[in-house]
């Protein structure tokens, strides 16, 4: 239920809910069901959203049931090898036409009355078409609703319902420089990457924005993972990741406030050798080889060690350790369904696969120790923010506001985005402010002409 303090008009109150000049954000945007409902229309129906990976649908007829905001969608490869994303809801009376998680099929047959849809979405089977409809039903008008645009970017599949949305490339801007580190093979040679194992799916009782803003670059919460660091679940048996490879590196927070994306990145000195994955001989040698190839293939870009990131609005990823993608699917203001994909190079040897399988599930997902720490914070924070008294007190996003970080020396590396050096500060909140700046724009902008702020150069930043 919305409270007496609920916002009345969309734009005026939205600005007062997200005050980036002061660095405060109302709790209403996390807990208010009315705002949540507006997000579905303003944000999830217009943004580019992550759907899945091409390795999940490698053969004609392969499908994977995914989610776009609240909607169930079917990602599938048709018989002509074309990739589609359809609404998973029968055009006759709305039944979910596909209730499997994934598989291969020539048709999606609705279990309710039997309408059947081909893998290109066309309505191909209508029971009693001759007898009951006298062949008057125009099947061409009743296929599965399809997204307006779909894009396969380096194997990752994205879609939007909005035909006026810019291309995926324009939506991302320079952020693909950082996304590439997730999607490329470890050696950066352009080989194939695939989804490893099943997709982990679980419910987290908090608003979807808690994890999205955490992954966009919350270095400040490192303290919550102290117990995991002590347990030493990392790939070399120390900490939760191989942080030795970051020694001497410059810590950068990179924000794209005009687009909403953000990432944590480390820029290491040129000559830095990495020692990582010291788990076992085969694993260490494999990654040492990948690393030396990576340095050859990426050249000076190999100096970047990418970290947690969020592609606006709800896709987050860890590009390196452990290499995975998460989508925070909204399921009401107070809950979301987290889905996690794990990525691996197709040619990784069995020992490496087995080692990574273990590391991935020990770190991430419902069984993951690190993710459990995070979930505990988000669950309790959300729960403690719902009351009428709690809602009177905004959250604080003032870290680093009003002053600049030290200059960034990139030695000719032209890194896109708004870059902030947080090496000495240890943390900052520019990425979160960028995220909520974009969120506010989506919530009030009438259309993509207004949303494409970069086209007229008026994308402002905080």
């Amino acid at each position, binding site marked *: 239920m919305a409270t007496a303090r609920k916002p009345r008009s969309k734009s005026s109150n939205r600005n007062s809910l997200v005050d980036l000049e002061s660095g405060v954000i109302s709790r209403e945007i996390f807990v208010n069901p009315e705002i949540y409902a507006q997000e579905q229309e303003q944000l999830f129906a217009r943004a580019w959203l992550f759907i899945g990976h091409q390795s999940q649908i490698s053969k004609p007829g392969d499908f994977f049931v995914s989610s776009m905001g609240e909607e169930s969608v079917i990602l599938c490869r048709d018989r002509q090898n074309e990739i589609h994303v359809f609404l998973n809801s029968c055009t006759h009376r709305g039944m979910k036409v596909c209730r499997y998680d994934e598989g291969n099929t*020539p*048709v999606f047959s609705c279990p309710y009355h*039997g309408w*059947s849809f081909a893998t290109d979405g066309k309505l191909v*089977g209508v029971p009693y078409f001759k007898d009951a409809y006298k062949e008057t039903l125009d099947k061409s008008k009743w296929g599965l609703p399809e997204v307006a645009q779909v894009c396969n970017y380096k194997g990752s599949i994205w879609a939007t319902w909005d035909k006026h949305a810019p291309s995926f490339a324009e939506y991302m801007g320079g952020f693909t420089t950082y996304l590439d580190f997730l999607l490329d093979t470890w050696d950066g040679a352009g080989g194939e990457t695939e989804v490893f194992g099943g997709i982990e799916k679980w419910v987290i009782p908090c608003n979807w924005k808690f994890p999205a803003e955490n992954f966009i670059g919350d270095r400040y919460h490192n303290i919550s993972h102290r117990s995991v660091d002590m347990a030493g679940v990392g790939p070399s048996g120390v900490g939760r990741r191989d942080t030795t490879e970051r020694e001497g590196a410059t810590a950068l927070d990179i924000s794209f406030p005009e687009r909403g994306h953000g990432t944590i990145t480390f820029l290491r000195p040129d000559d830095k050798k990495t020692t990582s994955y010291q788990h076992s001989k085969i694993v260490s040698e494999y990654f040492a080889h990948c690393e030396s190839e990576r340095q050859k293939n990426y050249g000076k870009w190999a100096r970047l060690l990418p970290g947690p990131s969020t592609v606006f609005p709800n896709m987050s990823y860890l590009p390196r350790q452990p290499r995975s993608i998460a989508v925070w699917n909204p399921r009401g203001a107070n809950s979301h369904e987290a889905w996690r994909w794990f990525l691996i190079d197709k040619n990784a040897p069995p020992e490496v696969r087995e080692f990574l399988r273990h590391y991935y599930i020990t770190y991430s997902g419902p069984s993951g120790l690190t993710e459990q720490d995070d979930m505990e914070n988000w669950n309790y924070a959300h729960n403690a923010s719902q009351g009428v008294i709690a809602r009177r007190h905004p959250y604080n996003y003032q870290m680093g506001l009003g002053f600049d970080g030290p200059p960034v020396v990139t030695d000719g590396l032209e890194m896109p985005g708004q870059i902030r050096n947080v090496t000495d500060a240890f943390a900052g909140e520019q990425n979160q402010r960028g995220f909520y700046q974009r969120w506010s724009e989506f919530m009030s902008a009438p259309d993509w002409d207004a949303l494409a702020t970069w086209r007229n150069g008026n994308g402002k930043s905080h």
Partner: protein
Amino acid sequence: MAEVVNLITLEVGVKVFTTAGATIEIIENPKDGVWIFGKYTINPNDPSLVGTEEMFFAQDITEVLN
């Protein structure tokens, strides 16, 4: 009442009989229990359809022939 045919178990090549009196050979089975893809081998009502392919609805299939 005739026995209900379970489409899910039918393999490609199996012939079935329809309510319209036609004989169909299964060419693909999505195994959803609702539809099969088949080809007419006999169709007394419209012999010109013999050899053509179509989707057949479960409730139109009355009997498995082989």
